[in-house]
């Protein structure tokens, strides 16, 4: 029984063309997904549609029986769907602690906020060390951890991470991955867009390959990278067949 059902969604920006072109996808509870695909495939757009930041032109997004397609972002968040965008989207002049508290903006119970804050600090000790520092002054990796930590403050059911390791050194990226691993083990449903496809797929139960605004193919994450269609997707038709021009 999927918790998130995306059916036939088309979406685009302003008066621009459709970026998602009738995309359908099902996400099951407590499983983890890695979305890969070349630039321009519509990966980030898909996340924005789910998060309510972009309304689909056609199709529907249903989360646990409720339609999200016309909801405001804060209403989507309240259902337990949380989005960590690619550009981290922190509040640069707020301290780490304040950023985390902002993450629980919709949580009215103060003691609950405190509890979760402690849990995030435990999971990301570096954030607790830097609690008083402005978020804008953190390193790239720390900012990413803060973005993830902030997402946890709402205690999400479904967590969407858009390229969490973008621009990070391999070692730092490794840390981020192990933290995602931890989130998984906590029972969260995680959907991740990851450039480091190999690592991302290792982490995930299920791989989804997007191209040109639709799901090109999906399957258990092992073996996806060996699929010859992958090479073609990233390096052109000639590359997959081994022929040259």
């Amino acid at each position, binding site marked *: 029984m999927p918790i998130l059902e995306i059916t036939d969604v088309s979406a*685009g*920006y302003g008066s*621009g*063309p*459709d*970026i998602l*072109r009738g995309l359908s996808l099902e996400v099951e509870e407590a499983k983890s997904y890695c979305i890969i695909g070349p*630039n*321009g*495939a*519509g990966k*980030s757009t898909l996340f924005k549609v789910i998060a309510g930041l972009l309304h689909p032109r056609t199709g529907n997004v249903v989360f646990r029986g409720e339609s999200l397609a016309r909801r405001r972002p804060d209403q989507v968040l309240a259902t337990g769907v949380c989005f960590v965008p*690619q*550009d981290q989207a922190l509040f640069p002049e707020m301290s780490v602690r304040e950023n985390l508290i902002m993450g629980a903006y919709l949580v009215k119970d103060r003691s609950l906020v405190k509890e979760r804050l402690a849990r995030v600090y435990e999971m990301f000790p570096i954030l607790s060390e830097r609690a008083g520092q402005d978020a804008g002054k953190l390193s790239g990796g720390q900012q990413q951890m803060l973005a993830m930590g902030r997402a946890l403050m709402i205690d999400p059911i479904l967590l969407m991470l858009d390229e969490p390791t*973008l*621009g990070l050194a391999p070692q730092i990226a490794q840390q981020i991955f192990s933290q995602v691993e931890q989130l998984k083990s906590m029972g969260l449903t995680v959907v991740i867009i990851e450039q480091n496809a190999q690592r991302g797929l290792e982490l995930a139960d299920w791989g989804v390959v997007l*191209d*040109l*605004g639709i799901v090109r193919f999906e399957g258990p994450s092992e073996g996806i990278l060996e699929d010859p269609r992958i090479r073609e997707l990233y390096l052109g038709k000639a590359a997959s067949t081994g022929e040259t021009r």
Partner: protein
Amino acid sequence: MIEDRAAVGPEPSDPEPEQQEAQRPPGPARYRWYVLAAVVVALFALPLFRPMISSYNYVLTLGALILMWVAMSSSWNILGGFAGYISLGHSVFMGVGGYVAGVLLYYHGISPFLTAPLGGLAAVALGFLAGFITLRTRGPAFIISTIALLFMFLLMTDNFEYLGGAAGLPLPALPLSQEWLRVPFYYAMLLIALGAIWTAYRVAHSKFGMGLRAIAEDEVKAEVAGVPTRLYKISAFAISAFWVGVAGAIYGYSIAFVRPTVFFTIAISAQMVLMAIIGGKGTVAGPVVGAVLIYAINELSLVAFGATEFNIVIQGTMLVAVLLFFPLGIVGTLRKMNRLPAFLNWD
């Protein structure tokens, strides 16, 4: 990240928008020139019909003022309409023109009818200088700096003895009998208005004007396309100052004094902005239509209500209403609806 904000996949369908044929759009109907020529001839001939006009001086004064506003809002439009840089302190140039001519008359006895172009050039010089500094910013900060420029000049003229301080300089009247006194001012303003419209028309129909419109739409794109944006912006500022300065010179003479509060008040700048926006900023005809209309409304409400405050309320309300409902102004909106009379299509 910087890249791929709007990464896009191929488009399955690329609907061809509905289009007319590839010809050049039909040229503007010819009769518009007859209409315009007739209007200009009528304006030149107006003072000749003295016996037929009951309140001759009132009509000429009114005519001169409307023409002055036509000139000033048309000039404002070159910077604010074409280039998209809103100046809320444009009357500073009127004051510069007024004071240059006023000083030359008061201290040296040279008639403003001769020195008005000098007033305009002084305004141009200030335009260059101010543009050089204020055009380093864009948007709100630029607008604010134009207001500050205006108040700087108010303060300075208020405090310079040479310029007569807050009381200003009284100017000797034109040595003419009362009955002919308004005629030279009327003709001067008519020439100024025609000059300003011509300038706006030339700018609109030049590479320069096209560059300004590109700047208004997307400055970075314009620059990369090859438009020297900084030079063009500063030039637009300076050019848009010229006729305002000339008009100021004649206006000071016509009221027989120059005084800081006559020129350096935001109300006068506001008027220019209002006229251009209501008429349609960025079009050549818009400011002309706006100036005539607003001035007519002002006069009517003065006659009807007598209170200037009420006038101001109407102006503010009109500005807000036009911005919210017809941001393109009268001419712009009519054109969009394809309802613009041919004789007003000057672009």
